[in-house]
């Protein structure tokens, strides 16, 4: 496995972005950083800049106000990149799905690689979702990929 893919698989850097949610998922995602769950022991780090991130973790239904910013953040991330939709709103927009200022789930705007359901999902579920996605990447790209 070439060194880049080993690094991406072993210690992915995560960018957290809220697209209009109630903050429920955000506080559980942040809780994953804190001592009881300590996601950093899995090598997962929350990062500040899209340009350094491997994984985009998105919470909230996509509001009209935020859509362009969300797309821009995604475009600023270097390849290969993955998107994980955290929480029911990010999955489908529900219960705000029909509201006039809401487009729907994240996959109305971006390609999504993993979905973590819950309202909100517990920190363990979020970590599980991220870890599962990394595992699948390791399995499908064992000798490295230039995607």
């Amino acid at each position, binding site marked *: 496995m070439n060194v880049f893919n080993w690094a991406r698989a072993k210690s992915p850097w995560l960018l957290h972005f809220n697209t209009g949610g109630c903050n429920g998922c955000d506080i559980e995602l942040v809780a994953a950083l804190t001592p009881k769950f300590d996601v950093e022991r899995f090598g997962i780090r929350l990062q500040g800049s899209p340009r350094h991130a491997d994984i985009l973790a998105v919470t909230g239904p996509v*509001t009209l106000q935020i859509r362009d910013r969300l797309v821009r953040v995604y475009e600023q991330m270097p390849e290969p990149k993955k998107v994980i939709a955290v929480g029911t709103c990010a999955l489908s927009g529900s219960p705000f799905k*029909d*509201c006039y200022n809401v*487009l729907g789930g994240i996959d109305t705007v971006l390609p999504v690689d993993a979905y973590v359901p819950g309202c909100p999902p517990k920190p363990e579920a979020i970590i599980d979702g991220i870890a599962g996605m990394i595992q699948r990447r390791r399995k499908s790209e064992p000798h490295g990929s230039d995607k």
Partner: protein
Amino acid sequence: MGQTSEVTEELRAAFKDSMIEVKAPRERRIFMRIKKVAFQETVKRLINDFGFRHLSTITGVDLGDQVEVIYHFAREGAIELSVGVALPKNTLSISTVSGLMPAASVYEREVHEFLGVSFEGNPNLSPLVLPEGWPKNVYPLRKERTFEELRQIGATK
């Protein structure tokens, strides 16, 4: 209910010319409806003479051919007085209270963008919450605006 009843009667006496009705369904809650023409004067007196110095928020309600603007005042945290003024839709404006209460400015902006009420004298009625590019005359909380119609507007943005 003692204090609330007293205050209700004081209000009834003080504003008998401008008032349409006043009622107190429970303690610490008074609802008053007044005529638009008496609005500015009434608000001044409520703040200065009656001590209703905290403005909790301003609500706009679409009544059909009128829009009612309701000002929710509180007195030292306790009695909540809601003062409603009905405005005909063809002359949908009322003077701002932001000169008397600076906090009113944000609430007036909100009622303006969702129901189309003009607050004369408010220097900033720019959108507070609706997205950039939202069509100017589409007021989401008007009853004639259906969900489907609003969704269409959202989707084409």
